[in-house]
């Protein structure tokens, strides 16, 4: 009941959703993918997103966490998020069951720069559990309606071990396609039947990534250590800092550039990001 005043849409109000499916992704059981369906008709249309955006998952009674959207805008009827178990909210979420009611608020942030990427070669470089919005991007680009909009697609994706790779069935399916070049790698492996790469992401990038030209863009998403050692490799391959695209994470609350904590310089990671080019990041304090 609101007395007086003007009518304003409330950007803090999440859409109510039901957990439709929970998939344990990794052998350490710390990563689960949650598939949500919207409770109210029409909310799915309102939650219209682009690959690279995120949302606040609202666990009623615990709080909210900002999580990249793992499903692709081309997948209809649900939204998917892969969540690492770290803090209060994510740990509780991991204990929730199919059928439980919660909320999602978004979509938030910018996205990967799809207008710029159209007509270009795209190199996707991911590490560990930071592959979620990259999955969204790959599914989006491979959609029959979209594939022709992009030139070569290369994907370098690494994890500690085969059991720590996300979306393993999909990775295998992409391996078989000829319209995407997959370079899956693990840090180390005991399995004699492992048929993909062994080695850290920066080393595989050096070997497998196409050398730079004006039409080639790299999207990097991964742990800080991977980014730290991959960036010099891309420099060596000749990638300009406008052609290196990164997605950042910071502690967030509002997700709409108001609560003040996620800034790097004058930019808010939640609203002006989370996607920045390296050239943009070079001009701002590295507080992430």
């Amino acid at each position: 009941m609101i007395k007086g005043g003007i009518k304003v849409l409330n950007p803090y109000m999440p859409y109510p959703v039901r957990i439709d499916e929970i998939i344990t992704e990794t052998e350490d059981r710390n990563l689960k993918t949650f598939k949500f369906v919207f409770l109210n008709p029409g909310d799915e249309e309102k939650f219209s997103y682009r690959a690279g955006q995120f949302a606040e998952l609202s666990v009623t009674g615990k709080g909210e966490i900002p999580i990249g959207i793992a499903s692709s805008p081309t997948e209809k009827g649900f939204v998917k998020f892969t969540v690492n178990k770290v803090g209060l909210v994510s740990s509780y979420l991991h204990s929730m069951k199919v059928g439980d009611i919660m909320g999602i608020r978004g979509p938030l942030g910018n996205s990967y720069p799809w207008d710029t990427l159209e007509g270009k070669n795209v190199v996707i470089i991911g590490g560990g559990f930071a592959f979620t919005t990259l999955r969204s991007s790959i599914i989006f680009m491979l959609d029959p309606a979209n594939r022709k909009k992009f030139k070569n697609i290369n994907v370098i994706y690494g994890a500690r071990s085969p059991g720590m790779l996300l979306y393993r069935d999909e990775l295998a399916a992409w391996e078989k396609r000829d319209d995407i070049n997959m370079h899956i790698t693990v840090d180390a492996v005991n399995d004699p039947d492992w048929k993909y790469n062994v080695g850290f992401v920066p080393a595989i990038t050096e070997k497998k990534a196409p050398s730079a030209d004006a039409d080639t863009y790299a999207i990097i998403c991964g742990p800080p250590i991977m980014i730290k050692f991959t960036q010099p490799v891309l420099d060596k391959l000749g990638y300009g800092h406008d052609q290196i695209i990164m997605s950042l994470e910071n502690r967030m609350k509002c997700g709409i550039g108001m609560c003040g904590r996620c800034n790097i310089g004058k930019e808010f990671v939640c609203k002006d990001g989370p996607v920045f080019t390296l050239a943009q990041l070079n001009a701002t304090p590295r507080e992430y």
Partner: protein
Amino acid sequence: MKVIKIDKKDWAGGIEKIQSSYRLYGPVKSDAFHDFKALEKGELPDLNFSNTRVSPKSVVYPQSEVMFEYSLDEKDAEHHILKDAAKDYSPKAVLGIRPCDAASFLLVKRNFDTPEYKDPYWIKSYEATTFVGYACNNPCATCFCTTAGSGPFNEEGLDVLLVDEGDCYYAKVITSKGESLLNAAGWKTGADGGAPDKIAALEKEAGSRIASSVTTGRLKDKKTTELYEAPFWEDVSFACINCGTCTYLCPTCWCFDIQDENSGCSGVRMRNWDSCMFPLFTIHGTGHNPRGTKLQRVRQRFMHKLKYYVDKYDNGIQCVGCGRCIRSCPVNIDIRKVCDMMNSYDPKACACPAK
């Protein structure tokens, strides 16, 4: 501009009349300090003050505010679904707000009222408020409003400006919102023709009493990364104890936290003021903290107010010169000094301009 004359003997009666259509807030003295509080029926604002200890931002933006309510009881039909909390956005008025504090709302508005998103709580509360200012005839020694985009008689952000002229207040009518309030109080007598001159004289005298200043003209031209890496931050931040005093007392600090608080099978999602001085403000779930040190947090506060804000909005600094952070800092960190250091910083000139 229209000026109304309010005889001080008509003051209490007028306020009583306004109270039937407005919720009133004003400075109230408790112990040695004044603070803005909701005025009880018949209670008058105590205008015998220089400024309040805590800023009046809480009139629009309370330190703790419930946003949503919810039930966790699965027997309830709509359990785990957030519901808007009951809110009262009926008209309210803040009486006796100083011009610097009133100006601060315009700065804060840039954060809460953006082209992309509107913060409904702040905006509705702000729009419900009529700001009745009280010109500063006697500014404090720590006031530097005149170089921080405001001034002791500044009208920006106000609906009415009261000027104390001995036996009466002159009320400058700035907006129609202000006019409505004056009408509601029954204060309608136009001031004598000499009023504008008297006000101008008082304003001039007040301005001349402001002895303190900041220099801000070159902040915009500085390179963010160079200011960020300036060597003076170690010296500036050394004394800081990382309490939230400066940010909580500041009229222009707006940062907040969102928390769910449960009680049995129900709960509320609320927001509380937060502070960039606290390590918790930025810590990641993994334990990594991009602003994990005191130096980083102190630098964030000053860079936000004096550089990031300046660059983002091209509308001056995020400070109105009220001087509260200077007066109340337990360890005497002085924004005027830091602002001047930033404004005059030349990375090429000297290895350590800190002293």
